């Protein structure tokens, strides 16, 4: 039995449809990451789960029982909002003990639970501090400890790392996942940051304009994204326009605009159907020597971006399109320079083929 279910849930705010007939299941102990741009409906989804909002249509189930009319405080879920909302007049320990106390646990038990939670987030040494004496990162950990101590089996995390500096987020995202997994809770974690989503989630759900674009184990969603929007949202890619020319056995030949031919896995799309080819940046190889791959073209380096542990190269291919290649941990001697002519290649299996989107490519890639 799924821990949580949404069955055709719709939520409107006036004329705005925040969630549109959304259905999905979450199983016990799962760490689900809901990824989507601002305005996609992710916070609405969490608030519906928390009981802070009621659906206009459809039903929400917890352990098989409908909870549409169950108050927030009677649901076994804790909502951790983005602006932590720690009680400013209570100490860290009191803040963390609040959940169990509010549920009627005796003070001694509540404090013991709170102490354990603080230990987990390694802030026992600040138990007597007031929230405003703590840094942002520490406040986030207190908010998380409060969630863990609450005893609720379902953790609803709304951009839990959003208020933190980039470098701190890098550190804490892995620790957050470990903590949640250790506690055995079911977690639904909302974010707009795909690096974060990939680091924490067992499964990823991609939302856009109130609808689910894709939902599945993170490896599958990355390797076989359901749409161009999803491919762009998670991992990014270069996109080429073309059409299906012929199919020979397991291979489809795609005519790319401007006179290129690309070998891709055979597709169910009809001949001459317009398509978009998506190429992941790390699956594009650049070399000064010959490449032994199904798809190899001459290219010219048009741009280099330094990203620390990797470089991103912008390469012009013979039809005039620019594609991006991400080279990881490259030594300075091997680095390519703007203007250099290179061989660019990718495997047939790495060419992702999508039906040409009805509203055009630009619309499909728009994330605000």
């Amino acid at each position: 039995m799924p821990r949580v279910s949404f069955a055709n849930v719709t939520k409107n705010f006036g004329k705005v449809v925040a969630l549109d007939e959304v259905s999905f299941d979450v199983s016990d102990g799962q760490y689900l990451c809901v990824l989507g741009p601002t305005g996609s409906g992710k916070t609405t989804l969490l608030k519906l789960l928390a009981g802070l909002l009621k659906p206009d249509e459809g039903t929400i189930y917890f352990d098989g029982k409908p909870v549409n009319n169950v108050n927030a405080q009677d649901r076994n879920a804790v909502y951790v909002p983005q602006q932590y909302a720690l009680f400013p007049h209570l100490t860290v320990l009191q803040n963390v003990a609040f959940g169990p106390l509010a549920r009627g646990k005796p003070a001694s038990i509540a404090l013991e639970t709170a102490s354990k939670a603080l230990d987990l987030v390694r802030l026992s040494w600040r138990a007597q501090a007031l929230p405003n004496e703590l840094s942002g990162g520490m406040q986030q950990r207190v908010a998380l400890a409060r969630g863990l101590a609450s005893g609720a089996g379902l953790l609803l995390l709304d951009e839990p790392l959003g208020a933190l500096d980039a470098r701190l987020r890098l550190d804490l995202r892995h620790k957050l996942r470990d903590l949640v997994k250790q506690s055995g809770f079911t977690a639904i974690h909302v974010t707009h940051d795909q690096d974060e989503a990939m680091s924490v989630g067992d499964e990823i759900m991609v939302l856009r304009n109130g609808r689910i674009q894709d939902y599945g184990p993170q490896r599958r969603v990355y390797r076989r994204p359901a749409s161009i929007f999803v491919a762009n949202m998670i991992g990014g890619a270069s996109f080429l326009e073309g059409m299906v020319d012929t199919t020979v056995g397991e291979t489809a030949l795609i005519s790319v605009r401007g006179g290129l031919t690309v070998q891709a896995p055979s597709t169910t799309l009809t001949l001459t159907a317009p398509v978009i080819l998506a190429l992941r940046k790390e699956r594009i190889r650049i070399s000064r020597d010959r490449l032994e791959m199904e798809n190899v073209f001459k290219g010219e380096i048009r741009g280099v971006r330094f990203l620390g542990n990797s470089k991103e190269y912008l390469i012009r291919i013979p039809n005039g399109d620019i594609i991006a290649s991400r080279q990881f941990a490259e030594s300075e001697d091997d680095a390519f320079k703007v203007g250099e002519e290179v061989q660019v290649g990718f495997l047939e299996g790495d060419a992702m083929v999508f039906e040409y989107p009805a509203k055009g490519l630009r619309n499909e890639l728009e994330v605000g």
Partner: protein
Amino acid sequence: MSKIYGNIHALADVSLHVEDKEYVCILGPSGCGKSTLIRCIAGINKPDSGQILIDGKSVEQTPIEDRRIGYVFQDVALFPHMSVRDNLSYGLAVRHAESTEITTVTNEMLDLMNIRDRSKAYPRELSGGAQQKVAVGRAIATGSHLFLLDEPLGALDAIVRAELRYELRKLASDLGLTVIHVTHDQEEALSIADRVVVMKSGRIVEVGKPSDIYIAPQNLFTENFVGETNLLEGEVLETNGSQCVVDIKGHRIRVSGFGKKVGQRVIVSIRPEFVPLTTPSEVGWKGVIKQVTFLGNLNRYVVEVDGGIELITEESTAEYSTGFRVGESVSVLLANDAHMLLFDYPKEGLEKEISLE
């Protein structure tokens, strides 16, 4: 320059030169003083000591509005009751520019920022990224050549930030602007800056080109802050002046290190992308995979090596290898010291030195 609030040195003796048409990013954690710094340059804050010179002239006596600096905040601050066009032309209208000039420049800005089709829209109808473009266009329309950007992309979704930063950079290049751009995001700074200024606790820690401060920083804080790294505590066993043999909990490695003494406590730093893993072999350190995280373009492993040392390593999934599993035995090959850096053990302890908060 210094700026003091009560007991706190928001800025402590900070000195910086920015060249004409340079794009400088000031990078540091919250509270490091980066915003205070550019607010002093803008004239919003007054420094308690020191000087600010623009084009060689002191601006101490110059009020904000006369400093001819374009300023873009994180919180966009567009006029909500004005259309995009009116927001863009505001600076010029206030200066009583000719109406033909206003129209020409505003149209230029609309085209430059690629929002001509949204000229009649109101801010609330625009996405975060589009709003920020209007804010930038408004600043450029004033004709300034010096720009101060205070976390201009901070309020935007990650994916929009990653796209817009390159547009910002290109704009600055095309228009010949001098830009000082404050950010807490090291990837942002590395990818667009000519030079990066790293700050901590009111001081400048290090300044350099992006590749220099990532590959060979002088400072341990910089090494840890700009990207991830493994920091291993050890002791110098041998040295010949330029190379050291370091003992790390019973393991030995050879690292370049100038001026170290035998018996000295040191930190060896090695970034995750330079920690190669292989199936168990005779050479290298023996270890076990404790954790595997698939990040899409990378596999991230936490490896525990004999002696209780934990190493983070990252490998591109483009390697077409099957990858390792939790519990699998591996060897860590740290033979190539080209990517390892040696630092003196910090006087105040490691945690304090690299602390982000």
